[in-house]
């Protein structure tokens, strides 16, 4: 953290230790300073960086344990109250979309993995669906079941990590240890299937890479035998914890209209009473055949955002139970040519990732690589609401709001 007084960057200043007036330090402004060393580029920026009496700027990040990656937040504070916030992003911009334009369709699927690195399978799912629309290929039914199965497992471990990190940012260390136990179980299970622990690279255009194997199934059965009990145990640790409830209830309240105007999706939107879930609103894959509820809360505060995710874990377990019971036989991969060149065209596909609507827009010009490919990541849109949500809250509560929005910087910056 770097506290900066009311001054513009790029100018000389006298260091704090210089009681001797003869000593002054010429200090060039760096990007680390809260105040950017450039003249304001917009009215909003000019307004944000002009300080009134009693206000100061506080720089959080990009290296800060609570900012979930390399997000940098400049907070304008009065005392301990946050008056205004300015998130600075781009510290993890890796140019994935541009790399995808130079790769053929198979290679794209491995490149999109590390975008939203906690839900890699969902990252693959949207581009795969878009490419399948371009190629006009039908996915075998068993492959669709396997996709839903592994994607719901991925959703469970993502929400598990969310539970741990929210508690960690509020000051409780223990829940994150339980989260990682749960996460490691699921991830080892998926590694038995896909060969990787984070960036699974399992989906293919026209199906999935391999069929289910016995090790995966035995691990899955082992985990399913205690999954619900484990969720209950984890939630008893957090749900009625007095500190967590007092710090999160009524914090960062947003109503449904504002949330829709800010283009929030996913559990953050469902916590405001809007029952929008891509799996139900724009059904894809085999979700229309499955029974599950869309958990909705009306409060719209941080605690509701947490509870919605807990309910979603239970619904995902319910989905996995149905998928295992109804899994059909058959191939897991459609017959595809080795080198695939679709006709020119465009395709858009969207899925429900743990953070919301995750979409992919792909354009084909008739060659074996996409002409343009764009990813719509929900973390980016959810992060927009950080500023309205954390106005006039304490600094530590702004951190809790940020944790409850669950942005993943890999997805925000791409």
């Amino acid at each position, binding site marked *: 953290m770097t506290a900066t007084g009311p001054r513009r960057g790029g100018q000389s200043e006298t260091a704090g230790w210089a009681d001797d007036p003869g000593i002054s330090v010429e200090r060039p402004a760096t990007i680390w300073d809260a105040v950017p060393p450039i003249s304001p580029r917009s009215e909003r920026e000019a307004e944000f960086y002009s300080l009134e009496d009693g206000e100061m700027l506080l720089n959080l990040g990009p290296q*800060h344990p609570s900012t979930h990656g390399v997000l940098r937040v400049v907070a304008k504070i009065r005392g301990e109250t946050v008056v205004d916030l300015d998130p600075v992003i781009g510290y993890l911009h890796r140019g994935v979309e541009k790399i995808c334009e130079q790769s053929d369709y198979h290679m794209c699927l491995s490149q999109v993995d590390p975008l939203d690195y906690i839900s890699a399978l969902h990252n693959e799912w949207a581009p795969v669906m878009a490419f399948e629309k371009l190629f006009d290929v039908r996915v075998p039914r068993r492959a669709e079941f396997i996709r839903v199965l592994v994607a719901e497992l991925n959703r469970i471990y993502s929400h598990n990590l969310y539970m741990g990190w929210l508690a960690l940012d509020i000051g409780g260390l223990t829940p994150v240890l339980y989260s990682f136990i749960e996460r490691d179980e699921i991830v080892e299970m998926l590694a038995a299937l896909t060969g990787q622990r984070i*960036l699974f690279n399992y989906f293919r255009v026209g199906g999935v890479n391999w069929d289910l194997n016995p090790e995966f199934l035995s691990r899955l059965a082992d985990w399913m035998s205690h999954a619900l009990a484990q969720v209950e145990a984890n939630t008893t640790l957090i749900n009625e914890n007095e500190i967590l409830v007092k710090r999160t209830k009524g914090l960062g309240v947003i109503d449904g209209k504002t949330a829709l105007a800010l283009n929030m999706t996913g559990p953050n939107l469902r916590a405001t009473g809007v029952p929008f879930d891509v799996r139900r609103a724009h059904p894809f894959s085999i979700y229309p055949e499955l029974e599950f509820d869309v958990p909705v809360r009306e409060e719209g505060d941080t605690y509701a955002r947490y509870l919605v995710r807990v309910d979603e874990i239970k619904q995902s377990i319910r989905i996995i139970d149905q998928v295992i019971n109804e899994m059909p036989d058959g191939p897991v991969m459609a017959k595809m040519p080795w080198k695939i060149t679709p006709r020119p065209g465009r395709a858009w596909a969207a899925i429900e990732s743990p953070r919301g609507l995750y979409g992919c827009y792909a354009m084909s010009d008739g060659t074996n690589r996409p002409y343009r490919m764009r990813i719509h990541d929900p973390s980016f849109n959810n992060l927009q609401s950080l500023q309205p949500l954390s106005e006039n809250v304490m600094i530590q509560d702004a951190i809790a709001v940020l944790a409850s929005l669950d942005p993943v910087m890999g997805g925000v910056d791409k």
Partner: protein
Amino acid sequence: MPDLSRGPSTPSAAPPDSDAEPIVVPNDFWSSSNPAAYGGGRPPSITHLHELEADGIQGDNGRWGRLDVIPARSDILLDLLRVNSLWPLLSGLACCAIEMMSAATSVNDMDRFSMFPFRASPRQSDVLIVAGTLTTKMAGPLLRLWEEMPEPKWCVAMGDCTVSGGRYKRSYSVVQGIDRIMPVDVYVPGCPPRPEGLIYGMMKLQQLIVARRGRWAERAVGPRPPRKWDGMNESGGEPGHEPEWSPVSGGAR
């Protein structure tokens, strides 16, 4: 059997390059019932570790002998302590950070191997684990973090992106290997490496610290040919030939 009842000895044969007088700490606290145990047979004329090693008495006996004299060259001693409490910096950049956290939590417990708590402040940490893709925008802040860490410090490059650019070799915004901007002690490849891989890399770092005991300042920036004293790779250049390299920041030879 030497005379153990004698008091602490004065340094008789201090080497010319010793930094200070030896610290003499008489052991008034305990003594073994068996005077020959715990390396108790060490001749009292030996006051420095290198004399001890030249004498042929090595291993735990030499290290955990009677605390009558602790040799000088404080780095040599302190590095042994540092090896057994490596404090990494809690700094995650991307995907590898999840595996780093997984290595630190219950299932793969890094604490067992004395890589102790993750510190949030660079002022208190020894090891910078660069976990994840380093972009050009993040390079400045990361370099600043590295410079804020007090010496002695070590750097572990975790993941293919930090080792060489990895899957972002064709990207316009990624630093193609962090050894272009800062020294690296241990490379842990993998995309991302498993937590066991990170723990193995950190144990390699512990070996390296022991091998370089007291000479931690001799660190080069960028990839360089292995040197003899690294102790981990004996296949260096020709004997007597020192490869040319340019120290960039504080890399005094």
